[in-house]
């Protein structure tokens, strides 16, 4: 047992306790949490900082406004409904189109057709706080549905693959691509069964994958190789995520981005408590990289400079 712990320590693996006590508690003051916990606020701040985000169609903040839903989406074919304070991707509804026979029915990313009433019920639940972190009242965001870039089409089962970058004190430390599977119901969350693929920060190319804490090589549904995919506009992605530090001021930050076919990388959300599976996906320890960032840290560097330093520092050596 102690030998196993020592081996992990030697590999520079970050544990949950250490993440919570050393990084989240020290670098992420609670007063900053609303900036990432409330997606409406995140969107606002990111827009103000000149970052690209999915367009907001409307916000439903009260039960009384739920009936406005049809009006908000009246001229939209596809959209996403999500709770402003949801966690772990819970409560997100991805509508990819309308039913051909009936305009008031919608097709979800999974192919299931649901009625407007069902969506309104879902929005009611969101507003009632079912998906919020504390169970308090919440807002429902209705926003642009990303038409994802074909780069990951081969290794995604429905849903939208996204890119998670862990940013330590403004420096990108580690990244992974999260690929939806049949088991994850089109969601890009690892604990729901999505595949995570590590990314070489240097070239923006995917490495091996991880599914349920185990290393895999092929996508479980499509059978395509997970490794070797080149992520477009990688420098821009790194710089955007580095800029997330300026927006949120959180020292230990997870930035989630998607690549839209037409609009390029967009910031979906940010996370004050990014998970640790990213280490398995990259077969590398975060503690190690954090220590290296501490050595090269320069408080005056611009996001672009920080991104460039990280790209150099954490390029895969192979």
């Amino acid at each position, binding site marked *: *047992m102690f030998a*196993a*712990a020592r*081996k*992990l*320590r030697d*590999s520079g*693996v970050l*544990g*949950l*306790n*250490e993440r919570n*006590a*050393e990084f989240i508690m020290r670098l992420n003051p609670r007063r900053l949490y609303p900036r990432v916990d409330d997606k409406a606020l995140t969107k606002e701040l990111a827009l103000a900082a000149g970052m690209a985000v999915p367009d907001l169609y409307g916000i439903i903040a009260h*039960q009384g406004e739920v009936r406005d839903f049809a009006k908000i989406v009246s001229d939209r074919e596809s959209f996403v409904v999500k709770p402003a304070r949801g966690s*772990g*991707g*819970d*409560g997100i509804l991805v509508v990819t189109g309308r039913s051909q026979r009936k305009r008031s029915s919608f097709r979800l990313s999974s192919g299931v057709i649901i009625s407007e*009433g*069902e969506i309104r*019920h879902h929005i*009611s*639940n969101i507003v*009632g*706080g*079912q*998906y919020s972190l504390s169970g308090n009242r919440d807002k429902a965001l209705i926003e642009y549905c990303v038409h994802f870039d074909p780069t990951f089409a081969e290794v995604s089962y429905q849903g939208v693959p996204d890119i998670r970058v862990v940013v330590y004190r403004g420096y990108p430390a580690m990244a992974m691509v999260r690929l939806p599977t049949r*088991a994850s119901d089109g969601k890009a969350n690892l*604990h*729901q*069964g999505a595949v995570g693929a590590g990314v070489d920060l240097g070239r923006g190319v995917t490495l091996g994958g*991880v599914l349920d*804490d*185990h*290393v895999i090589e092929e996508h479980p549904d499509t059978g395509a190789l997970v490794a070797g995919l080149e992520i477009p506009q990688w420098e821009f992605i790194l710089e955007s995520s580095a800029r997330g530090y300026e927006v949120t001021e959180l020292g230990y930050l997870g930035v989630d981005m998607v690549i839209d076919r037409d609009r390029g990388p967009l910031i979906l959300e940010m996370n004050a408590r990014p998970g*640790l599976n990213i*280490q*398995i996906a990259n*077969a*590398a*320890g975060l503690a190690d990289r954090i220590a290296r960032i501490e050595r090269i840290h320069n408080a005056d560097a611009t996001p672009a400079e920080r991104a460039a330093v990280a790209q150099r520092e954490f390029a895969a050596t192979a």
Partner: protein
Amino acid sequence: MKQRYVYVLAALLAAIGLSVFFYKWQVLGFPLDEDQETPVWTIEAAVSFDSGPGSVKVQLQVPTLTPGFRVLNENSVSRGYGFGYDYGRGGREAQWAIRRARGEQTIYYRISVYEDKGVDQSDTTPPFPPLPGINEPIKTAVDVLVVDVRDHSADEASFTTELLRRMNDPSPDPNVELLLSGVDDDGDFVDIVTTILATARIPARMVRGFALSGRQRHAPVVAWLEVHDGDQWLYFNPATGEESLPSRFFVWWRGNEPLVNVEGGNNVAVDFAIQENHLDAVAIAETQAAQRGTSAVDFSLYSLPIQTQAVYGVLLMIPIGALVMVIMRNIVGIDAFGTFMPVLIALAFRETKLLWGVILFTTLVALGLSIRFMLERLRLLLVPRLSAVLIVVVLLMLLISLISHRLGMETGLSVALFPMVIIAMTIERMSVVWEERGASDAMRAGLGSLVVAIAAYVFMGMAWLEHLIFTFPELLLIILALVLLTGRYTGYRLTELRRFSELTRN
């Protein structure tokens, strides 16, 4: 920096907790063990006499200073008699009085004592005794003996030993023979010895008491000799001259006063009976603490009303459950619903006992969960839906109680105290996780909650631990210190060793 504050605070808390604990344990004698009992001797003096026609007044010598023993309580059983204590020449006296008594009378005086090595002879140093007024020819015999013994001794102790040796000589010299001529019993013998010692200006007195052991009826009064050497009282065995005291010697009274004095009665007899009991050590420790006037006992939980004590018996175990919870979540790394849900579930298990509690809990959660999914179809708002689940849980519990009663299983009835709100919330949390993260996550967290709850229940149910915490609530400070330390534990969780095992392959 902060790390150090936590260590200092934890060390401080632990030090306070431990020192109060040690004081109560070692000095006040609070027992570590629930069943720990201290032997308590009850000595009963039965004074019987035939009353005369007039008023009766009885005086009985009772214990005053009791080296080696502490008095737990004393009382008198005497129907119709007025009763009180007074200080006489020999020490404390119990006094009974009655205007008119008829026939044979028996009065009881009872005292309960327990051993305590800390109780010393706390007399002041006595003055040199006055020369006793004795008549010839005894006076000459005493004087000759004193001069002779003084030549053969160095101090009070050796004088006494030498004197007793001569007095106990099987073939005594004529002077001793003269002195012993009127001696009938031990008491008279020791009385003569104290007179001789007084002539030699050595303070001495007779002590009488009992060697306590087990249960004795008609316990014999033992006469012993006490000699003051200027610093302290020494005890001598009058029969051997040896400086010693019988084991567990309980001093009843000192001096040559008669044990009992009855005015208005005759055929007086005193019979002593000794009984050894075992009393809860906590009660004795409390009495002792009260006698010392320490405030430790004012804050003892045993001073609370019994009802409140019962509540605290449970409440004080919650920190234990919280500690188990902290260890299970932060060091072992088990998934569970909510922060304190498992501890509350464990509390609920106390009502139902473990096996039945687990069965009930899983049954109720499973039934409630299926009903929750049925309610999902109705598309209810959050709060009404939660309330609906709560009502269904109450109905389910009612049903289970009725069924188990029909089947003659009485434990089913205790479910009424099972906190249904906890079950309703577990159902709700679990259903959300089920929907959003799938059945496996929900099952894992549910199972984790159950495992943590069972572990918490096992520790919270340990009788010795409950006794320990209840008797020494200051131990909670140590638990607080442990929790604080765990709060700064940044090592891996046990489950992470497995989770990240892929990373150590290369």
